[in-house]
């Protein structure tokens, strides 16, 4: 993999130029009490003081509300205004942690399964992902248990690793990344050969996701297990909404008078009414079943059907969880039992 070097000043120039060239630049920004991905208008808005952002980077390609098309009803006739694909901006996504970047792989496997969701794919195509290796971690991180690592290049177009002097090692991962580097080649200099590994955070691998994959199917029927696992779960949607790979959504209409649009918006399998039939029947009527669905989807259905793991080990869901449902612990319970 081609490596280059980007000084902190060049990094500033790069971002400033991108903004100047009307790229939509999205970066971790400290807003109020937390750090999240936001569209920036100046380099100074960027922060690097985070382990992971509260929400995942998926919002760039799978925003929480996506207008699918507009319509108008007039004189009892309906006309539809198709999605304006041209409106999707060229974007650069900065500061994406390797776990998050890898999340796009899982997400894409869902959105490209047979029926290709062109809204998603176009958004992603027009986004260059500049990853940032992790130099710190916390108790929630478990990427190394799910085949990731603090310095993994998978999913990023370019991966930056910050050196002790504040400059960055640049790893050019994809052609899209190479193109961006080429476009601004004057800002990148030759790689100094610094050892990347030594700069990375250490994340202990407490389990091997393959063991989860191997055991989880046999656990399916063990209702008592799932009930007990989910006892603490209060059934909100926080975990799914912050997850980089969760893709469940709802389709809703919004209208005022005769005009309106259809919207795709996030939803979560943890919510009790997610699967409720109009008849009153609910195939997943208790929280145990819903928690099982969440884990099975990530560790069984996605691996089996889409050939990808539905968990990148970012630990966001556990951080966001009001009752500390730590997914890594639950994985270990599956292995242990």
């Amino acid at each position: 993999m081609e490596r280059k070097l980007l000084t902190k000043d060049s990094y500033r120039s790069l971002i400033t130029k991108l903004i100047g060239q009307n790229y939509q630049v999205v970066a971790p920004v400290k807003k109020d009490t937390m750090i999240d991905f936001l569209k920036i208008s100046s380099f100074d808005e960027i922060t690097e003081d985070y382990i992971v952002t509260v929400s995942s980077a998926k919002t760039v390609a799978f925003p929480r509300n996506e207008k699918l098309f507009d319509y108008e009803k007039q004189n009892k006739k309906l006309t539809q205004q198709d999605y304006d694909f041209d409106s999707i901006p060229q974007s650069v996504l900065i500061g994406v942690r390797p776990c998050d970047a890898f999340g796009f792989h899982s997400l894409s496997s869902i959105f490209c399964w047979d029926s290709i969701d062109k809204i998603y794919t176009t958004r992603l195509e027009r986004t260059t992902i500049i990853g940032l290796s992790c130099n710190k971690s916390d108790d929630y991180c478990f990427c190394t248990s799910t085949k990731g690592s603090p310095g993994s290049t998978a999913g990023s177009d370019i991966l930056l690793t910050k050196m002790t002097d504040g400059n960055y090692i640049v790893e050019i991962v994809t052609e899209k990344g190479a193109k961006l580097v080429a476009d601004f080649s004057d800002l990148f200099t030759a790689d100094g050969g610094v050892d990347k590994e030594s700069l990375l955070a250490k994340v202990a691998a407490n389990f091997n996701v393959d063991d989860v994959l191997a055991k989880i199917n046999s656990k399916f029927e063990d209702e008592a297990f799932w009930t007990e696992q989910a006892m603490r779960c209060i059934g909100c949607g926080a975990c799914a909404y912050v997850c980089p790979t969760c893709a469940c959504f709802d389709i809703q209409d919004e209208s005022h008078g005769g005009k309106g649009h259809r919207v795709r918006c996030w939803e979560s399998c943890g919510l009790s009414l997610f699967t409720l039939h109009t008849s009153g029947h609910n195939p997943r009527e208790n929280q145990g079943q819903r928690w099982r669905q969440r884990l099975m989807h990530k560790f069984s259905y996605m691996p089996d059907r889409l050939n990808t793991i539905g968990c990148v080990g970012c630990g966001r869901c556990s951080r966001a969880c009001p009752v500390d449902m730590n997914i890594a612990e639950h994985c270990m319970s599956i292995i242990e039992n």
Partner: protein
Amino acid sequence: MNNLQQKAQQLLESGNYGLIVGYEKGTSGKARPVFIRKAEHASKLIFDESCDQNIAVYLYRQEIKHDKKKVIVANHHTLKSIVELAAENQVFDGDFMVLAFAGNGDIIELNTFEEIEKHVATLYHGLTEAEAAMMKKIEDMSLEDRWAFWENEFSKCIKCYACRASCPMCYCPTCTVEINQPQWISVPSHTLGNLEWHVMRAMHLAGRCVTCGQCGKACPLELPIQLLTYKVALDSKQFFDSVAGTSICADNALAIFKPEDHENFIR
């Protein structure tokens, strides 16, 4: 083994109780709810300052609702919520035992609603200084600033409903936000829909919010939404002298009235 753990162990060993809902040590030094069914697990139980979560929400949970051999380790938020839930017929006298703590740390067994109500009367009902300061900060803002403040906050909401799920008073099986005939509230999590949702949630907690702040603590985006329900709680107190979570038989502040209720805005 500390007092609580010993007590829990005894209770479970006695066979009179089969489940203890309490707190255990969670990730990164956080406390989290735990469900202890075996005496040998009693040592997991903790009770310290980190245990500020309101866990009354579990009392009416389908899986354990009808289990009459349960015990709940309650902090003062949880206790107040139990009283309010009792007033709203969501939990029933004799369905559980409460382990509360006296000022000196001694464990108090509360078996009946009457005992709980009496104990709750000894607790402080009101906002902490920090909370009161936050309220004041917002109330002191100009109208425009307040709007800007909340518009910014509401824009962040992802409608995960962690606030609702963690609030013991949000026990409706079908929340108004889930009703679509008519669609009361926009489903997508845009600022308008979010504002509608939070205003509705606060209004529905009028006279019912025990000011535990659990909704705000639960919010993954750290929206200070507890201030909204604090507002209705403070107003209920000020206007109607109604404090939620103090009486197992009081009528809701908005379910009753006094002819002399005083306002200054109706022409």
